[in-house]
């Protein structure tokens, strides 16, 4: 069927021409940045706790930069390292940026040799967005009324008390280990890896004694209904959504939060970076973003590139210490 063959050939050529035209579009001049759509990579699946943060930021950035769409692209996998690696590898033109977390940016390189990033020197931190403090939750009718009672029982039964976490080597497990270290107890982490509040279900079903989770959003409904109670929060000072929770930062120095950042590939042109940083800071300082964070129990912590880099370097030491402690057992 020569006619079909020719038609198919012509179509293919037309398609190829189109693709070529798009991919070889002249790189945008910095002074005209942004002149086309920006891709914002969220290294998690849609529907989790982190995806909405990325989407909220992308929507804000679109307004702040004016004239360009900011398209969210979910690229989950490998504890967020797949999506972050995509950003790190991308052409440094400001058109591919993405979300990173302290766990994926700092802890993963410590345990995962194959990653193409090792430290904040391998990418450009742009801005810090929000922090979610980790909280310890027990069943609503549990016999422990506060953290002290819980820790007293843990001390009397080393290794017998269990707390569900979302995986080993995650922020919430490290918070638990920080507490174990500081309070000299041995609470056993039990990984429930399915997401969607599975660790909470294990508490509700009475299969573990406690659940360690990040932020208020996932449990607020259960707390309001009296199904669960928040014993403690891993920060200094009281946590607004759960004012009765014991701040573990005050007595035990347990403060490790789940933190989210925006990053770009290394080697951005200086003026593009300046524009991106200014717009990003504008977003995280905006009322829209603050309201969003408030309703979901997140804490906005705007930091520019230098401060963010220092914070990430600081985390490297914290995680290294914790890893040493965890490896001993």
């Amino acid at each position, binding site marked *: 069927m020569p006619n079909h063959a020719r038609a198919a050939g012509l179509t293919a050529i037309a398609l190829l021409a189109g693709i070529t035209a798009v991919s070889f579009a002249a790189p945008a001049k910095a002074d005209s940045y942004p002149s086309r759509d920006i891709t914002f990579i969220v290294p998690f699946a849609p529907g989790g706790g982190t995806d909405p943060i990325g989407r909220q930021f992308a929507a804000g950035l679109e307004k702040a930069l004016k004239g360009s769409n900011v398209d*969210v692209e979910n690229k989950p996998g490998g504890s967020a390292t797949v999506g972050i690696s995509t950003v790190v590898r991308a052409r440094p033109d400001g058109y591919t940026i993405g979300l990173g977390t302290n766990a994926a940016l700092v802890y993963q390189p410590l345990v995962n040799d194959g990653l193409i990033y090792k430290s904040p020197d391998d990418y450009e931190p742009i801005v810090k967005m929000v922090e979610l403090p980790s909280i310890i939750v027990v069943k609503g009718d549990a016999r422990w009324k506060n953290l002290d009672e819980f820790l007293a029982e843990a001390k009397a039964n080393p290794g017998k008390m269990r707390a569900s976490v979302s995986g080993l080597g995650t922020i919430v497990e490290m918070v638990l280990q920080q507490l174990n270290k500081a309070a000299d107890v041995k609470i056993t982490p*039990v990984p429930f890896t399915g997401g969607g509040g599975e660790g909470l279900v294990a508490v509700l079903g009475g299969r573990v004694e406690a659940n360690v989770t990040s932020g208020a959003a996932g449990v607020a409904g259960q707390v309001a209904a009296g199904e669960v109670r928040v014993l403690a929060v891993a920060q200094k000072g009281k946590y607004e959504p759960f004012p009765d929770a014991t701040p573990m930062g005050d007595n035990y120095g347990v403060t490790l939060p789940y933190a989210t950042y925006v990053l770009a590939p290394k080697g951005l042109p200086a003026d593009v970076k300046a524009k991106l940083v200014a717009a990003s800071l504008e977003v995280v300082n905006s009322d829209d973003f603050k309201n969003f964070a408030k309703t979901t129990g997140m804490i906005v912590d705007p930091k520019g590139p230098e401060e963010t880099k220092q914070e990430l370097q600081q985390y490297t030491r914290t995680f290294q210490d914790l890893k040493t402690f965890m490896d001993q057992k």
Partner: protein
Amino acid sequence: MTTIDGILYGVSVAFTAQNLLVAFLGALVGTAIGVLPGLGPVAGIALILPISYSLDPTSGLIMMAGMYYGAMYGGSTTSILLNMPGEAASVVTCIDGYEMTRRGRAGAALTIVAVGSFVGGTVSTIGVMLFAPTLAKFGILFGPAEFLALVAGGLLLFSRISGGSFASGIFPMAIGLMLSTVGQEDVTGQNRFTFGLIDLTQGIELVSLVVGVYGVAEVMNVVESLETQVKPLRVKLRDLLPTREEWRRAWAPYGRGTIVGFVIGLLPGPHTTLSSFVSYKIEKTFSKYRGEIGKGAVEGVAGPETANNAAATSTMVPLLAIGLPYGAVTALMLSAMMVHGVQPGPLLIVNHPEIFWGVIVSMYVGNIILLIMNVPMISVWVSLLRVPNHIFLPLILLMAVIGAYSVNNSMMDVYFLIALGVIGYFLRKFNFQLAPMVIGMVLGPLIEKYIREGLFMNLGDPSIFYKSPMALFIWLVVIFVLTLDLQRAVLDRLFGIKTRTIAIGGGD
């Protein structure tokens, strides 16, 4: 608020112009997503997530729910017509659905499915209305021990789900299990079989497997047999409708499928996929016509497709009544609620009755819309079979590639799609069964997860797996079903009692 008040209130919410429109749009887009191979409900709903943010939360959820059960319905269309499942929950529908198409009964099969989806969705909605608060905590009763019994028992039972010899089922299942171990495992974050490739840490995508071994392999199959292929006959309107006999045989599977789907939908996990597999297995074990299943029987289509719609509906129970998302789609709905500042949880029904009752009543409306919209579409779908192959096959391939890419926005998934297509083609040539491969891939990670969770939870002591009464009961049921043949032989030999042939595991 009593249930009656709630329903009346829900009617007032669901019957506003906006909510009727979004229910319609959801069902329409969902059907399209289901029909396109590879583009599943999760990827599809993720695409409209930003749109739902601009709607009020009730409308957003109504639209998402509509897309979910719409996709469950639409997924069967290509299974039946082309032997290519639109998504994983419609894999078993290929077996008997495609056989029916080859016998010229495509229209009948599609009509049976449309009505079955309606029955499953509607009856399940009634169940949600009446029992939501009571049933919400059903899933909480299940811990790692109970789930391990369910999924490991399921793996044993499903190995011969599509008939054939033992080896022809167990070998592809082993491949499926092996493929499921590739990538970064969740518990400790170790990379397995990734050979240092970052992109492999995300693992092999189920969509690549399903669309590869069915879709791509089927395209190769058709190309190979182009010369000998018979053009489907022009279908008369009368042939689009099931015969009286076909209708009669569909009702029992509708009933069983609804119950199976409803119950499985209340549990965490890939419930729509599992419900269709379980329903198929039940039809094959207990149906009066079990001997014909696998050779184009109505039961093999009616049961599973009813079940996955019932499951897509009843999974709203844990989401709305206690705020726990038990699947990827409900997790998306949960995140849509949170973005609006609506707090999901046990108090949702008190604080936001408009969401609770509005969404439930809308599912009733949506299922009617789905039925009215899709029955006339059946003749259009069937006429797709007459599209010339040189146009049709490249389009299918294109859609398969787009679908595989869209799940994780990853080229790796596309490469696997093609590789698995080739593997699927050769497995078929050697008469291996493909459904067990999908089962291995779905259940493999779950089995590992529940074993590890159980051991961690019980501080390394495996007694947890047999000390739970519910787990023990599930294991006994599994053993009972597995040994039906043996039991029959024993009864016959020792006591001379003749029982009806139980076609366990195959029509052989």
